[in-house]
């Protein structure tokens, strides 16, 4: 788990200062590896290499009776295509969006799981700058899909004017719908992934460094609490396994839902 690498940081902190300093947002400011290049940038490039290698290797044989790797690749692809894209976009147009959604899902999943892999141990999406482009692509995609289907003004009407409400309340609802459908969506998409990765990593670091500090105090009761903190840190790591998958799933699910809603007929 992420305990080992954080221990080193904890010992430095415990030796340097007199009291325990809880980890804050500053733990995400890693020093550059070389030049201007930082660790998350390298992790992002590594994720691209990993995903390309996985997809090429799992689809290269393309046997009728799939091997293990091909089965794994097809399982992931089938999951994204059937239970995310087709369910939410509808069977007419969903195949156009499957490549993007599949790449998005794998990209977020791999980058999230970096947080639990020893030696890497940094979720690259805990830096918000890496998520903004993804949310921007999703935003452009669903707005573009809506404009392709309904025309620019038609899409604006489709997205902002709810059908079946009395005419007098429409002036109140239109700005609200515009705010929630056009402006808030990409922001929440970004913040949700960022917040989860940020909070998860800070929690793991807190348990690891806090437990190490308590063990080093020399007090018997405190040391017991430190062991408890390590156990809780391991438990939280297992919770993070679920959260990381869920966030990749949710980002892809919401992207496809927005596309599906933009492509839907007049309601």
């Amino acid at each position, binding site marked *: 788990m992420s305990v080992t690498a954080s221990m080193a940081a904890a010992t430095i902190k415990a030796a340097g200062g007199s009291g325990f300093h809880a980890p804050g*947002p500053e733990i995400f400011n890693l020093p550059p590896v070389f030049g201007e290049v930082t660790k998350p940038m390298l992790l992002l490039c590594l994720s691209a290499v990993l995903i390309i290698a996985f997809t090429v290797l799992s689809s290269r044989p393309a046997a009728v009776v799939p091997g293990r790797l091909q089965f794994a690749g097809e399982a992931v692809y089938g999951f994204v295509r059937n*239970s995310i894209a087709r*369910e939410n976009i509808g069977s007419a147009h969903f195949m156009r969006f499957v490549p993007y959604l599949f790449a998005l899902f794998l990209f977020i999943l791999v980058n999230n799981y970096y947080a639990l892999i020893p030696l890497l141990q940094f979720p690259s999406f805990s830096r918000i700058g890496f998520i903004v482009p993804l949310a921007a692509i999703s935003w452009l995609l669903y707005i573009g899909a809506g404009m392709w289907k309904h025309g620019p003004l038609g899409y604006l009407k489709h997205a902002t004017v709810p059908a079946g409400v009395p005419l007098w309340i429409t002036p109140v609802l239109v700005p609200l719908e515009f705010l929630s459908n056009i402006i808030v969506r990409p922001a*929440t998409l970004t*913040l*949700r992934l*960022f*917040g*989860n990765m*940020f*909070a998860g990593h800070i929690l793991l670091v807190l348990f690891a460094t806090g437990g190490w500090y308590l063990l080093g105090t020399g007090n018997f009761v405190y040391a017991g609490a430190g062991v408890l903190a390590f156990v809780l840190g391991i438990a939280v790591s297992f919770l993070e396994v679920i959260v990381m998958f*869920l966030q990749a*799933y*949710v980002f892809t*699910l*919401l992207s496809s*839902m927005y596309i599906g809603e933009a492509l839907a007929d007049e309601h």
Partner: protein
Amino acid sequence: MEGNLNLIGLGLSAIGPGVAIGLIFAALISGIARQPEAANTLFGRAILGFVLAEALFIITLAIAFVL
């Protein structure tokens, strides 16, 4: 004592989504118990509700660190 009052507000704001997420998954479990074959559909809807409830807290988290 040192710290930031924002974090107390952050803790308070976790109550609402916490209750909401509990209710959502309680409803999901009872729904699946009544009709196990609808589990996949229900799960997707439950995740949507979970995500919307969670968004409130995530926004607060971001604001707490910004302010």
